[in-house]
């Protein structure tokens, strides 16, 4: 897919010009609640962000929504979220989802209740994580580091994965464009990722702590990530897909996404 996108990017540069124009757009008459809810099998304090939509050209930072009642449940346990900052809601520390269960998110805000469901898939362990410096032939300086993983992809098709990279405890791939994700249809069934090059980074230094979090995401999460890319970062060519609203799993007209993922982590020190 990357190659195809690359080609269309080249084609645009060949014969087109762009210009920023002034345009009057209709206002959105009903502003919606935006949910960014991520829950996983890794024990930690999980976080949910509630914001509001705005008119397209509003130019302001998102408005955070306070005073909501937020819980996640698997039908047996209920995990409450407490507001720790305006619009930021957290669980207690060391809360973890249990794999292969369905989770329901409930949000009550301003008298309205929004719900969403997501299935928590199990995730394979990361058998190894290697960070390897790369020096271009004939040069002495390190050009970049290759981050390589080993893991056993689950048998059968229909599994989707995303990888997040943390450096010294800070999430570096916190946006959709930086996030690595894949569909196992691109690999043979039950493929063993043997020191597979996941990504390259040029912002690492010797002694840094690199952590990779491997997430088993659901198909709807993968499709939504892909749709977001096609509707935002990958626009601007004459081969654009038609504009369409990004799918959401939230009810009652809210937008955003509720994801529950199996998560496996591994840490390594940059040599």
């Amino acid at each position, binding site marked *: 897919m990357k190659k195809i996108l690359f080609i269309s990017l080249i084609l645009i540069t060949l014969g*087109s010009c762009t210009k*920023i124009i002034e345009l009057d757009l209709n206002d959105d008459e009903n502003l919606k609640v*935006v949910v960014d809810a991520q829950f996983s099998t890794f024990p930690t304090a999980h976080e949910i962000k509630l914001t509001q939509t705005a008119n397209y050209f509003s130019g302001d930072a998102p408005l955070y929504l306070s005073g909501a009642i937020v819980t996640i449940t698997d039908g047996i346990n209920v995990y409450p979220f407490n507001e720790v900052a305006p619009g930021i809601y957290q669980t207690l520390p060391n809360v973890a989802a249990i794999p292969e269960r369905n989770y329901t998110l409930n949000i009550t805000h301003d008298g309205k209740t929004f719900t969403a469901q997501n299935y928590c898939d199990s995730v394979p362990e990361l058998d190894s994580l290697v960070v390897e410096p790369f020096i271009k032939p004939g040069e002495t300086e390190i050009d970049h580091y290759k981050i390589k993983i080993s893991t056993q992809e689950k048998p059968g098709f229909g599994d989707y994965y995303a990888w997040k990279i943390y450096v010294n405890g800070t999430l570096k791939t916190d946006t*959709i464009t930086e996030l690595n994700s894949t569909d196992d249809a691109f690999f043979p069934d039950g493929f063993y990722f043997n020191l597979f090059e996941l990504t390259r980074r040029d912002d690492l230094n010797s002694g840094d702590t690199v952590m990779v979090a491997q997430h088993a995401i659901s198909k709807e999460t993968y499709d939504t990530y892909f749709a*977001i890319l096609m509707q935002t970062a990958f626009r601007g060519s*004459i081969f654009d897909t038609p504009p369409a609203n*990004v*799918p959401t799993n939230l009810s009652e007209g809210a937008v955003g996404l509720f994801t529950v993922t199996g998560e496996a982590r591994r840490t390594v020190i940059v040599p």
Partner: protein
Amino acid sequence: MDNRFYFKTMIYKYFFIFFILISFQNISFSQKYTISGNLTDANNGEALIGATIKIIEESKGTVTNLYGFYSLTLEKGIYNVEFSYIGYETIRQEIALNNDLRIDLELKESSKVMTEVVVEGKYSSTNVESMDMSKDELKIEQIKKIPALMGEIDVIKAIQLLPGVQTIGEGGSGFFVRGGGADQNLILLDEANVYNASHLMGFFSVFNPDAVKNVELYKGGIPAQYGGRLSSVLDIRMKDGNMKKFEAEGGIGTITSRLTLSFPIKKDKGSFMIAGRRNYADIFLPLAPSQDLKTAQLYFYDANIKGNYNINDKNRIFLSGYFGRDVFSLANQFRMNWGNGTGTLRWNHIFSNKLFLNSTIVYSNYDYLLGTPQGGDENGDTFTWLSNIKDYYIKEDFNYYLNPNNSIKFGIQSAYHSISPGRIEFNVDGLENEISNPNTNSLEHGIYVSNEQKFTTRFSALYGLRYSLFQNIGEGKVYEYDSDFNPVDTNFYGKGEIYQNYGGFEPRLGLKFTLNESSSLKASYNRTQQFIQLASNTTASSPLDVWFSSSPNVGPQRADQVAIGYFSNYLKDTLETSVELYYKKMYNTVDFKDHAQLLLNQYLEGELRIGNSYSYGAEFLIKKNKGKLSGWLSYTYSRVFRIIPEINDGIKYPANYDQPHNLSVVTSYAFNDRMSLSLNFVYNTGRAVTMPVGRYSYMGSIIPIYSRRNAERLPDYHRMDVSFSLKGKNYGTKRFRSEWVFSIYNLYNRANAYTINFKENPDVPNETQAEMLYLFKIVPSITYNFKF
């Protein structure tokens, strides 16, 4: 219901009507004889298509068919017969008809371009008299006068200037006829299906103007011999080649050069033509900012060949072919190429002076390849993606000239289509894999009969019936989908097994009522069916075409169109005018769900959403063919809407090519024999698009919230082009003729919106902006043409 029984009764019913109509004519016992023959160009032996043969004494006549053949049956007697063709000198002969006559004639081109052709007599081939409506015919000489992008004369760009024909996007080769999609046009080059008529993303079309003789476009009243596409037929005929002498024609343009050679194999018996074009669009790439682009390749080439031979006066064979390729590569990173190939073998056989048969065998192929260079890219990774669609056709088309009041056409056709939607092989980082989508094969058959009948001197009708049958044939793999369009089951079919049939009658009807010598009223109705369509949801003519056929999951598309028209001519046919109104209802219209993935998706059918659509419009045309000033002015008002239950909440929405107002002005002024100036102007309403109303932030992206589908419009499009042609001294008398053409595309340098993208301002957080993409501003070019 028993389908076979239904089929039989329908056949009987229609054929009964047909024979009743034919027998409804004056029964005459007097002796009748037939004049028949071929009309050709005296200069090069090319068959003249649509030339007029008229009997001065009676208001009777006929026109030559696509191979220059005519036949006219009259009572014994002495007649003055006139043979004429626009731009050619008329020949008048007195003929004593007391036995069957064969008259083959050569017409000479009028020596001066500006000479007015005097049309006398009652029968003429003008738009008022002819049965045709919703049909446009362009001669290549007219097309060559129109100013073109980078000086590249283009058949498809020319037809986009006709009423009822629209285009979206700057310089695209796609065209939309009366609310039909770009894949609903049957594009035929010497009877071979051309699946992708675009070079270089559609900025140029695949037809080399030097190899083309005649272009006909049917927007409605589609004759029964054509089937398989819903909205239009674009029938392009290549030149046969010079029967008299060696001839070379060519040109050197800003980005393309071309050369055509044609010569007799045996004088007046057979000829051969070969035409080639090579584009060098990459000539400007060294100026590109990035190193990758400096070493890139980007060009196309194409070749047309045609040979024909008159075995005797009853048999003639033609062999023609086209091959074209676009090539794009970036040194050691990737390559891509795509193109069409077609081959047509035809045999004209004259059984009798009344019965003409053309047998055709056609091969057509479109394929594309995309991937890393041979041997892998700079990292040693390899990746190739191949896809193609192939057609084999066999056709038998008869023309039977029963008498001057009835010309009957009938025939049968069969086709085999094979679609290979895509096969990917890759070896990236040592990971080797192959992904391929199953091939689909199908058969498509047609049988038709039609008659053009003159009931009275004022009233004529063209009525016909076609039956089309489509069959999916194994080996095949078909997924079953549930009500949410998720695949739930797979069915396999063995080789040669027919697992789905779709058939249906397609009645065609045209009526003409002559009001007076210079005006007539016409009406038409046609039903058409389409079994193979293109999955495309982008604006540009992408080379990555995904064709898919009707199947157990996808029913055939069907359209019913009615049109009425008023045709009137002024100043001795110098000015032709027409007004046409149409309404078209289309069933099983295919659109795509939001976020549809069309490329390499084996569950493509699950991405389709099927509904109905309708379009209507009014088309106005004023055309001046003769005199120093020639050209046309056309205005079209048209709308097209779709209603698809799962799209836009089932609320009707305009198609993305809906453009209510369309105006084209095409003019050319000849100062003298050497100098002429051409100018055209186009204006149309911006196409329907979807625009955001709101936005939100999610994981670092500002995501737009959209309005209803296609509820907004791009800014209006308008553009003016000019060209000036200067011919060499004594043009027309010397053997070596040369011409300079200076042209300017987009004269007043307007930036017309191709798309508008909504994106984040990279410099200011939280700020979003509208960015307009436009393709060509002012483009000057020079072309040098020669002929000897």
